[in-house]
């Protein structure tokens, strides 16, 4: 068993889990943070994207043990009370989702992209979201949402 201590959305957490536990399973099954989704078993869809020490990662392809001591932010940590994060607001405003399954990952990937590159071009948005797949919307409205978020966060 592995003793894991980490900060999730600002709260210190400590759990003892099997060594093989993935970060996504720690978040969903042990901490009840089910906003982070699992959409594939090949590390390709990005639904499970969270921030670990400020960088976007696929939490299905990282052991909980590798996140020991880290600071993790999930989709649940984005809004401030009732106030949505500008990226969340933009996805709502631009209808950048249908079923919403990919959306938590899209939002986390977008937030990370805008941190590195606050005013991305269309081309840079395509590349920045390459690790995230959406089966529903087509990507047009997602790209619109990224641009709106970039505008509001200026």
């Amino acid at each position, binding site marked *: 068993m592995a003793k894991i201590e980490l900060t999730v959305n600002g709260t210190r957490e400590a759990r003892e889990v099997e060594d093989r536990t993935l970060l996504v399973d720690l978040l969903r099954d042990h901490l009840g943070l089910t906003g982070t989704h699992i959409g594939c078993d*090949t590390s390709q869809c990005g639904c499970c994207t969270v921030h670990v020490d400020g960088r976007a990662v696929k939490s299905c392809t990282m052991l909980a043990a*590798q996140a020991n001591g880290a600071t993790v932010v999930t989709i649940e940590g984005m809004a401030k009370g009732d106030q949505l994060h500008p990226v969340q607001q933009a996805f709502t405003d631009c209808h950048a989702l249908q079923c919403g399954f990919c959306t938590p990952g899209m939002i986390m990937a977008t937030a990370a992209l805008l941190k590195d590159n606050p005013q991305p071009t269309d081309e840079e948005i395509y590349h920045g979201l*390459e690790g995230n797949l959406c089966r529903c919307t087509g990507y047009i409205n997602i790209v619109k949402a990224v641009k709106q978020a970039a505008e509001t966060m200026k």
Partner: protein
Amino acid sequence: MFQFSYLKAKSLADAAALAKTNPDAKLMSGGMTLLPTLKQGLAQPSHLIDIGGLSELSGIEVKGDTLIIGAATRHYDVASSAAVKKAIPALAYLASLIGDPQVRNRGTLGGSVANNDPAADYPAAVLALNAKIITNRREIAAEDFFQGMFATALEEGEIIVKIAFPLPKHAAYEKFPHPASGYAMAGVFIAETTSGVRVAVTGAGPGVFRWSDAEAALAKGLKAGVLDKLKVAADDLNEDFHATREYRANLVQVMGKRALQKLVA
């Protein structure tokens, strides 16, 4: 995933000792290849020895006419490093093309080179630039290191510590990525080195290889257009449901042409 024990190595020596006492253990750097493999049930190591972030395996520095990059350096850090961009811009560019942002935030140089996936990007740079792979036991020339599909000169428990890239005069990389995974369907790295022009091809064959016909043609004159009429033999190339070997042969020629255009521009 099967059960395994997770061991966090405290140092390079600790990692080597752990590998020695646990013959069925596997080293883990970024885990971006190993964890998907374990999730598919394709390997069953007794232990994972985490070497990610070990200080001996970290760092990027230019020493004289060599760029030295620690094995645990993430693709993102190579792609965004001012030192790499200045010393070998083609290498930073190559790193920026690997997979997607999340993969680049975890995956490492050492993991990629040790894995030697026939469609991985780094092996093309390592071979074309005539780099040296420095392990905890010895130095291995790129030429001797890559031994075909997923095979390398690494011995049981041997750990890549860093890779030393001699600075080229010019270099360029172009790849045609698989649209879903980002891996190279064909990638061509051309380096004008002090000992001549070297051209390495990844993605197309069972392992990275030097394209000797292109090297011979470029030795006669390094200018745009030289590769335009060069045919690539398809016989030894990979064929799968993504592409026929003839298609890959054509891609090699096209990527070679594009890389050359960039190199001479």
